[in-house]
């Protein structure tokens, strides 16, 4: 536990959660900074164990149309990596105590400088980083500086990882992000049959909890993964509600904003409550 606050590390939160370890992804600044902060707090209230905070990027190669649109809206509103780190500070002040993993494509991180990024992220109150286009071959430098600052570097493993699974799993920190199926982010109704065998294999190789992401959007999927994985990462399904509720989320009327946040909380509870 972090001495200054009551914030758990990613390791602690992941290890303590009972199924499903729930890791929601939201895009910083979509539809607006204030709304993102409220969504984060609502997700914590709804039972999130770890928050993945996405940094909007102009060319998000691993994302489907929904998260591309989300990033575009956030960029149009002026959001940036710097702005998102500032926002984490505010979230902490407003009572966010779950660990925060900063999800950013590598270019904004390089532009800021890897060391500066890690230092600023840690000081803002982030607990981990996830860089989807930084495979293990390219990540040794940032892993080293992140370790010095106490940040977990979250690794991804994919159905095509093949012989790479063991090496990735052996280096995993916090939790291992297991990509359910080939392709970009976005909701899928079901996973291919072979996905379960793959997740089992990853689980066997991993010394940290395994959370499955890419395409999770309904209760049935979460039930099917019970006993296979330790948890779930849910992004597009949440950001789809944010997109639908974007006007209400920035409404001048408090009741409208709360109603929109309730939509998100209701979705989460149908997804993860037993």
């Amino acid at each position, binding site marked *: 536990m972090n001495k200054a606050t009551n914030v758990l590390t990613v390791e602690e939160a992941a290890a303590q959660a009972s199924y499903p370890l729930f890791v929601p992804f939201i895009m910083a600044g979509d539809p607006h900074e204030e709304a993102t902060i409220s969504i984060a707090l609502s997700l914590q209230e709804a039972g999130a164990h770890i928050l993945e905070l996405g940094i909007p990027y102009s060319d998000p190669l691993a994302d489907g149309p929904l998260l591309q649109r989300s990033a575009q809206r956030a960029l149009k509103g002026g959001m940036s990596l710097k702005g998102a780190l500032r926002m984490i500070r505010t979230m902490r002040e407003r009572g966010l105590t779950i660990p925060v993993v900063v999800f950013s494509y590598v270019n904004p991180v390089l532009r800021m400088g890897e060391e500066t990024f890690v230092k600023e992220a840690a000081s803002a109150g982030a607990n981990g980083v996830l860089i989807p286009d930084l495979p293990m071959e390219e990540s040794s430098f940032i892993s080293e500086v992140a370790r010095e600052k106490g940040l977990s570097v979250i690794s991804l493993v994919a159905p095509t990882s093949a012989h790479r699974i063991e090496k990735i799993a052996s280096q995993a920190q916090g939790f291992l992000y297991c990509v359910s199926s080939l*392709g970009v982010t976005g909701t899928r109704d079901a996973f291919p049959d072979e996905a379960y065998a793959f997740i089992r294999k990853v689980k066997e190789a991993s010394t940290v909890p395994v959370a499955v992401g890419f395409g999770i959007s309904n209760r049935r999927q979460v039930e099917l993964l019970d006993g296979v994985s330790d948890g779930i990462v849910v992004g597009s399904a949440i950001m789809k509600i944010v997109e639908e509720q974007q006007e209400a989320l920035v409404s001048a009327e408090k009741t409208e904003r709360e109603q929109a946040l309730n939509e998100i909380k209701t979705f989460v509870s149908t997804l993860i409550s037993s």
Partner: protein
Amino acid sequence: MQQIYPDEHGRYGDYGGKYVPETLMYALEELEEAFNAAWEDESFHEEYQDILREYAGRETPLTFAGHLTEHLGGAEIYLKREDLLHTGAHKLNNAIGQVLLARRMGKSKIVAETGAGQHGVATATVCAKFGLECKVFMGEEDMERQELNVFRMELLGAEVLPASSGNKTLKDATNEAIRYWVTNVEDTFYLIGSVVGPHPYPMIVRNYQRIIGDETKRQMQTRCGSLPDAIAACVGGGSNAIGMFYPFLQDDVKLYGAEAAGMGVHTAMHAATISKGTRGVIHGSLTYLIQDENGQIIEPYSISAGLDYPGIGPEHAHLAESGRVEYTGVTDEEALEALSLLTKKEGILPAIETSHALYLAFEKAKQMDRSERIVICLSGRGDKDVETIRRRMEGESSDE
């Protein structure tokens, strides 16, 4: 002796590497292995050379531009005629090489990106010849600008898919092609069109394009008994340039790269990556790119769809940093001026992309001695650009 790049990490000095989602990493490993095996296999080279000779029309001529040399009054000007290659540009060298590689790997589906449509047409052409399924992503904006090339690809049996994100140009088409590849990586071969992207692509494309420089070297020796004093080529992603430069890197030959300065490098409307870019990652490779202070990629601009790209091949970034190649921005207007001059003096209509290299080379030639020689990589022909040129010239005269 300079070090040979890429190194075992796929780096050219600091640049290059593999910055892609984990889903693609194994595919890149497989690709590298397959390429290395093919490159060491004599039968692969025999097949590749046969197709280049009998189907593509290699070797391409080296033309002495006598009338133009006389007009400019400086160095002798020679043109390496990639415009005479089948489909009208150097792109075919690479498309043939990669399709043969895909076949060796047992992949029957090809996906590619295209800007102006030249790489798309080259890919669709080779896929037609070998009976492979072909999908080409093209920015919606480019599909409108290059309507005829869209039809040409469809005629060749390819499916052209619109990329509707961003500025709807080459960068966005590349994003969509990579996203498609991530989804279909098991049976699909991604046939990238330039020396960009994650390792091993910049190396593969360079090796399939170096035939331009290898032939030029031989042809200059035969015709003039010596190497040229200087060489110029245009650079978007940089495949024709690296293909031309690579065999000359160890020689005492000045190398000039012309990048697109659009409306001028002092404006925001350019694609001058080396002159105005900074270090960063685009499409899986650490290189120079045009970006803002937050690391967001800025949409480039050039009259030429083929140079309208915010990044550049990592080997060029390295050659710029080491000083081996000098890169200079050439504006839309300067390129069109050179296009006009070559057409009038030599009866050769070059592509607008190529015309950037022509302008730079003409400026250099004027300052060189009459006893010296400069070779320009005439990377493509201008038939595809006639409509753009006409509109531009009519627009300009009606403004006066």
